[in-house]
């Protein structure tokens, strides 16, 4: 498991990797998956605008979005195959007054994606609860979890490594039933063939 902390981003081509942004509040978790290339990236974006700062590209929406796109491309990803998910951007405390950083973060991330010609495939944003986002690189599976609840699938995984779902929390499996049962069906004949060959 690779923890993606505030202001960090990770791009992986290792099918066994799981990229995780724990406890996103007003921050945004931006996941980009190119499943045919087996690449996934996750950025944990903290603030909307970098102003005149050029360090910490991952911290600000206007610099983190192009950087993540560039890194996924650099690893062999192709923009038109991108499946992009946005999660987080909650307004957790009323007392922050007019400064709704969560909403501003989301708007800035979407604007930067727009500018790069990347469409958002799924989003789980706003509200007043924090979220944890997980990206299973091999499956291209993106899930979101809220405190005290079970994970919800944001981007359904390809069932190739469906068994790994079982290591996650129970309801994840239930949510992605179609994917795992489809693989189950595909797998059985293969298992039978293997037994046949062995006999």
């Amino acid at each position: 498991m690779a923890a993606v902390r505030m202001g960090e981003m990770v791009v992986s081509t290792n099918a066994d990797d799981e990229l995780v942004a724990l406890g996103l509040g007003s921050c945004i978790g931006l996941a980009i998956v190119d499943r045919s290339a087996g690449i996934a990236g996750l950025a944990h974006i903290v603030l909307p605008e970098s102003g005149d700062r050029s360090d910490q590209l991952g911290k600000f929406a206007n610099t983190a979005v192009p950087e993540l796109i560039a890194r996924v491309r650099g690893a062999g990803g192709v923009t038109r195959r991108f499946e992009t998910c946005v999660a987080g951007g909650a307004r957790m405390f009323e007392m922050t007054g007019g400064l709704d950083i969560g909403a501003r973060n989301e708007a800035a991330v979407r604007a930067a994606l727009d500018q790069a010609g990347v469409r958002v495939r799924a989003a789980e944003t706003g509200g007043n609860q924090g979220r944890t986002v997980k990206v299973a690189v091999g499956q291209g599976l993106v899930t979101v979890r809220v405190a005290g609840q079970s994970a919800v699938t944001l981007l359904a995984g390809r069932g190739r490594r469906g068994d790994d779902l079982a290591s996650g929390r129970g309801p994840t499996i239930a949510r992605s039933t179609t994917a795992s049962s489809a693989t189950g069906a595909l797998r059985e004949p293969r298992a039978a063939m293997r037994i046949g060959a062995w006999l």
Partner: protein
Amino acid sequence: MNPSLSDIQLDALRELANIASGTAATALSQMLAREVEISVPRALALSPVDAVDACGDPERHVAGVVVPLRGDIEGLVLLMIPFEQAESLCSLLGVQAHTEVGDSALREIGNILATSYLNGLGAMTGLALEPSPPHLHNDMLGAIVSTLLVGTAGADDLALVLDSELDVSGEPCSISFLLLPTSGQISDLLAPLGLAEPTD
């Protein structure tokens, strides 16, 4: 960018936290008619990202009471009670946790503890510190702390976290206590002690 804090400054802040949390522990002990143990407080000057990690498991489900702070110093006091332990704290007060009354009781505990903490801090530094009404939020620790730190530290690279832990004897009930001053206010906290300038 913020200069980092020296060891002497951090020691002084730790001592402030120690005395302030002592005052808060006394208030809690009187309220619950129980003994309350205080851990040795920590004063941490870290990047916001490390500060979140230093506060505990980011996914831990906690009841967080936030008391915004105004007056000579701006910032906030945050109390965190593990979600499941909120029940034992509420039952000590004779109310049901996770109900309207229970939530109100937690806010009130936050209010009393934060106020006595600030009184302790004020007595030491001579600063006028004024608590605002408390907010209760049940959520993941990381989401609460990171969102608050983004609010207090902004885009700065330095966050100051003063934390202490209060344990109610004989009950599975511990409250962690954090003071997060808004960036730029840290030197105001140190000035009354004659330590506003970095000393090493």
